[in-house]
């Protein structure tokens, strides 16, 4: 029907025609996919590189670089970025770059551990309530309500106050208060999945309740739980700085990015942008990288998109 001329025109119009790598004949193949595969791959690789770099910096720099991140040099306060201080100095003359790296260490610890705690606890409890249902569900969910009812920051304040100021109380105060949302999201999704015919099939195949939950329901909610986990990382970082804002944060030798950003607001108003900008970037860039990786992971989980993903 269509003559070769028309065919080429079509090709030009859609612009997405590719000759398959492995076919010898001259068939022109077109795809409806938007050909974003390479961009996506690049993005995933960049994310992985950023995360790797961050982890490396956190692990390697502090032990190797024997500089005192607390070293105060009042004479050199708020000096703009220069060779000596690539990110400038803060309002007591400490090197912002060095503190960013140390801060990344603390903030990542707080963010990642708190997010893990929140996600694992939330997913487990939510899956339990959703999968078992009935009275167990009701009882568990009311218990969850109890946890949800005390404002997070309040509970955080108490938890931090009960212990010496430090990283772990902060982690606990964020992790132990934030599993509630994950839990409810997971439960709701599980409830919706629970009645699907493939669960019937699993039941009939002899699967125990746990197995149904672990094998069929939880994988179905992992994208949601994973999103919650990723969101929890920056959230935990700000929660920590909110505690600092209220005077319950980390001691000063544990530089944290959130507290650095927060502490530098005055300098920002006075026109000194570097003590705010750099720690801010140190929060945001790794967060985006983690989000990028998690997004790739979620696409991999998504049964319909798997074939699109190459790392």
């Amino acid at each position, binding site marked *: 029907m269509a003559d070769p001329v028309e065919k080429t025109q079509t090709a030009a119009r859609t612009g997405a025609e590719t000759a398959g790598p492995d076919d010898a004949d001259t068939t022109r193949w077109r795809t409806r996919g938007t050909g974003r595969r390479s961009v996506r791959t690049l993005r995933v690789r960049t994310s992985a590189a950023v995360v790797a770099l961050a982890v490396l910096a956190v692990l390697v720099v502090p032990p190797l670089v024997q500089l005192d991140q*607390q*070293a*105060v*040099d*009042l*004479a050199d*306060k708020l000096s703009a970025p220069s060779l000596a201080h690539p990110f400038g100095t803060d*309002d*007591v*003359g400490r090197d912002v770059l060095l503190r960013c790296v140390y801060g990344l260490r603390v903030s990542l610890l707080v963010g990642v551990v708190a997010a893990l705690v929140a996600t694992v606890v939330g997913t487990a409890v939510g899956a339990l309530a959703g999968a078992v249902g009935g009275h167990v569900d009701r009882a568990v969910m009311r218990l969850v309500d109890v946890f949800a009812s005390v404002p997070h920051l309040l509970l955080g304040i108490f938890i931090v*106050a009960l212990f*010496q*100021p430090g990283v772990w109380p902060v982690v606990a105060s964020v992790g132990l208060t934030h599993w509630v949302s994950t839990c409810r999201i997971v439960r709701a999704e599980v409830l919706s999945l629970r009645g699907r015919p493939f669960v019937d099939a699993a039941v009939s195949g002899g699967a125990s309740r746990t197995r149904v939950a672990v094998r069929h329901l939880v994988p179905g909610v992992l994208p949601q739980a994973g999103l919650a986990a990723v969101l929890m990382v920056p959230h935990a970082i700000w929660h920590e700085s909110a505690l*600092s*804002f*209220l*005077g*319950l*944060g*980390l*001691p*000063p*030798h544990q530089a944290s990015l959130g507290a650095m950003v927060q*502490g530098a*607001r*005055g*300098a*920002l*108003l*006075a*026109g000194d942008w570097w003590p705010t900008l750099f720690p801010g970037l140190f929060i945001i860039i790794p967060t985006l990288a983690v989000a990028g990786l998690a997004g790739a992971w979620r696409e991999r989980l998504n049964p319909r998109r798997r074939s699109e993903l190459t790392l």
Partner: protein
Amino acid sequence: SNPDADDDSGASGGAGTAVVVGVASEPDTLSPLLGYGKDGNSKIFDGLLARNADLELRPALARALPEVTDDGTTYTYKLRDDVTFSDGEPFTAADVVFTYETILDPGTNNASKGDLAAVESVEADGDDTVVFHLKYPYAPFAERTVLPIAPEHVAGKGDVNTGAFNTEPVGTGPYVLDNWRKGEKLTFSANPGYWGGEPKVKKLTMAIIADDDVRATRLRSGDLDGAILPPNLAKTFAEDDDKQTLAATSADHRAVTLPTGNPVTGDVAIRRALDVAVDRDTMVDKLLEGRGKAAYGPVPTDSEWFAAGTERPYDPEEAERILDDAGWRVGDDGIREKDGQRASFTLYYPSGDKLRQEHALAFAGDAKKVGIEARVESGTWEVIEPRMAEDAVLAGGGNPADPDFDLYPMLYSELAGQGFNNMASYTNPDVDAALVEGRESGGKTERKRAYDRVQQELKDNPGYIFLTHIDHIYVLADTWRGLTTQIEPHEHGFGSGPWWNVESWQPAP
């Protein structure tokens, strides 16, 4: 950044009779019975006495300064008879007695009733005379009577601790409270029947803005006519033509406590070395943007009570020499040691207080240069308090009204470990003797001599390393004249500040 001319929110351009100022915090209560305005300058109330710009006492509700008996234990005040409360009821001696007796009542939850610890009894002698009987001679007692007087017929009604009077005060002062929206602002309007004449500033609003940066921004946006600001933010207004910056000198000091119980900070050599190792001038320059003074004791260097010659200039070599002589040898890690004891101690500062954090870090930096390690930690007061006997704390305080108000609680050995008094557990019999002499002897010269002795002792054996006296900075629209500041105490902003006498402000010509 001139505010809109038709903006009736600010006094600056429009009405010309209203002032809006931004302060950091609001009082818990407006009842003098629970401690509001105890150091004077409350807008709604008056005390028997008041202070002027130079902190000299002058009569207020009293007709004159009190008559003091020779033994210093009886104070007699003659009251004005032309004063009414803002609800129209006359002010009488009964109100004074009511106020003081209620404060001293054990059922009243007033935390500063200790200020009146010397009072044995208060009695009215007719409608216009009040007599205070003290338990012991207490030289600075008159300073305490700036305390505001509450009307018995209103305040006596409800529960003193939680009654309506806490939020709906009635007083004799230049202003009456219009509205208090907690967390947002308090608005006052001029009391037309004020015995001192109706103020020119007809409307005073105190906006509560906890965050320094937001306060600065709102000041810049024209939302406020004036605000208290930290030095670095105040600096950003220096170029503005329509703003004036007022720096109030103060007795507000920052100091590091050196607990006697700690083997390092209790050592006199360490104390003396630290005292000369800290670079106070750089702190003033950099941390305070030059808005302050080096401190060598609670008494500011420009106070008449300051003992001349007790300044300790920055001299790290001297510090090293003191340490070397005392046997503190530099160890491998650069920190000194003596008899197996590292010259290292923990320094707490209250978390969230940026200025103290900076002082602590700067102090630790200076100490490190002479081989002493101060590990800086932060914590809430709840965390710090149990550790005060062991660990150093970056403390602050100061009341300019009388040297006794600071020196006695800080240094008197019997107060060691009592609440936040004598945090360093400083024990020095000579100082104790001088303190008692200073508070009980009536004459100014004797008192001065006693306090000189105390300050001299502090030089030889410092229990605290005083770092700075902090100026309090206020930025205000340039529309009012005659703005002054007092020498301010540690606590400031609400009562102190250029608005300490807002009732006498005059509009710009």
